[in-house]
């Protein structure tokens, strides 16, 4: 997650600059932050619509989650901070090395020691710990595979009057590599996950101009 501050004074009209320096400044900054927040949310909607996961798995709606974490809470000393409260966003933006250990392996009770990269669509969006049918296969250099163990799926039916249940055998499965386990991942930075600063500034100024126009229309102080 991250906070964002955008300088808007250079894009503001003389009237708006004057108001920003007056006692109305904090209120107008809050409006500007809302405007910039809305532009951010629009951008994340766009990413949601245009960046599905590469494996084609069931969507986790990551970008919708980022959008909902956008908020404009704080005015301090003439500056508005927009906050994006979502785990994983800053990593996408700035890239860098992802190391294990944040999560706990429920089977061992200890911090995880490898990053699990999904290899198939059905593995996407799920942690290996959510399955109990994976076999560990070491490869080399600290890497390993988690492979689906051989099994037959069954369906258990509702209880009959005599107390018994119908068991229906299903698909036989096994052998598919579901995850690649690696000691760390070096993710590239992606600045396109944020819109250009100029657009955020323009949205902030447009919002502040609207608020001023509303006050002027009502004969308010401006």
């Amino acid at each position, binding site marked *: 997650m991250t906070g964002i501050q955008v300088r808007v004074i250079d894009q503001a009209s003389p009237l708006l600059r004057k108001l920003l320096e007056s006692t109305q400044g904090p209120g107008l900054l809050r409006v500007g932050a809302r405007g910039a927040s809305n532009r951010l*949310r629009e951008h994340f909607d766009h990413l949601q619509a245009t960046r599905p996961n590469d494996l084609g798995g069931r969507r986790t709606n990551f970008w919708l989650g980022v959008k909902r974490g956008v908020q404009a809470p704080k005015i301090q000393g003439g500056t508005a901070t927009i906050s994006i409260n979502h785990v994983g966003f800053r990593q996408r933006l700035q890239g860098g090395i992802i190391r294990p250990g944040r999560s706990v392996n429920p089977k061992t009770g200890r911090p995880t020691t490898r990053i699990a990269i999904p290899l198939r669509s059905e593995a996407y969006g799920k942690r290996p710990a959510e399955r109990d049918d994976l076999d560990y296969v070491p490869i080399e250099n600290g890497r390993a595979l988690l492979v689906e163990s051989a099994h037959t799926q069954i369906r258990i039916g509702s209880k009959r009057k005599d107390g018994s249940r119908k068991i229906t055998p299903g698909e036989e499965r096994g052998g598919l590599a579901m995850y690649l386990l690696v000691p760390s991942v070096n993710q590239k930075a992606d600045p396109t996950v944020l819109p250009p600063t100029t657009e955020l500034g323009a949205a902030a100024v447009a919002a502040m101009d609207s608020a001023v126009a509303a006050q002027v229309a009502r004969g308010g102080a401006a």
Partner: protein
Amino acid sequence: MNLVAPIPFAEALARHDVRQVMPTHLSSRQLQEIDRGITKTSLFSARNLMQGYLEALKEKLRLLISPAQVSRPDRATAGNPDGLTTDGRNDADLRVELRQVLKEHGYAPAPEDRGTIKDFASDQRLNLVVRTNVEIAQNYGYWQQGQDPLVLDAFPAQELYRAGDPVGKVRDWPKRWRAAAAAAGDEDALRVQDESGRMIARKDSPIWQSLGDGDGLDPDEASDALHNPYPPFAFNSLMDIRDIGRDQALALGLIRADEQVQPSHEEFPVPNPAEAA
């Protein structure tokens, strides 16, 4: 653009924290019949009587609603000497942790329920519980921050739109909008829908609460209502709201130039983070 430390989503956390854990033997349909003042201020899951699980759920949801920044010595680097890292969760993390809590409480579903929505440990059930509660809190936060009088001057209206593909049931939102507009008496909302196909209304219109209540729908259709004037307006719907600016609201005839849209308030008190600070 400066990247700085994030700030907790205080309004979202306040909305979440005001909810009291409520174990219940009632079904989803039966819960709909309870006074919404109770359900809106309670954290529950249909037919779930495990107080300890619900308390753990409430605590863990905070980490998704507003991840915290913590200092970890093992994460310290030259560029990050304090080892600042995010202590948050994603949906998969929460599923793993909540299943562990269920296991610790000795939970096992009936065989015929395993893997279905009735199974507290199923993906379907956990995703529904986690997503609904996180979205209520965060969307309340966005909605609440939008009630500032000057923000209302700049953004006096909002639009209901589809933000993502629905999960499961596909609903007729234009129909629900029309029903809510009629129930709320918002003729402007109906007119805008007829003229443009878009679902836009003033922020202070009672249509938003009507939409949340499923007003104007038959009882079956309204059974998924969540009773909030902000998203989610129904389970798993992925419908969202976005601000509509003053110029567009004027052009649509939703406001007059000299008019001030008034702030709306939640039906029950949510502590104001600014006052609490």
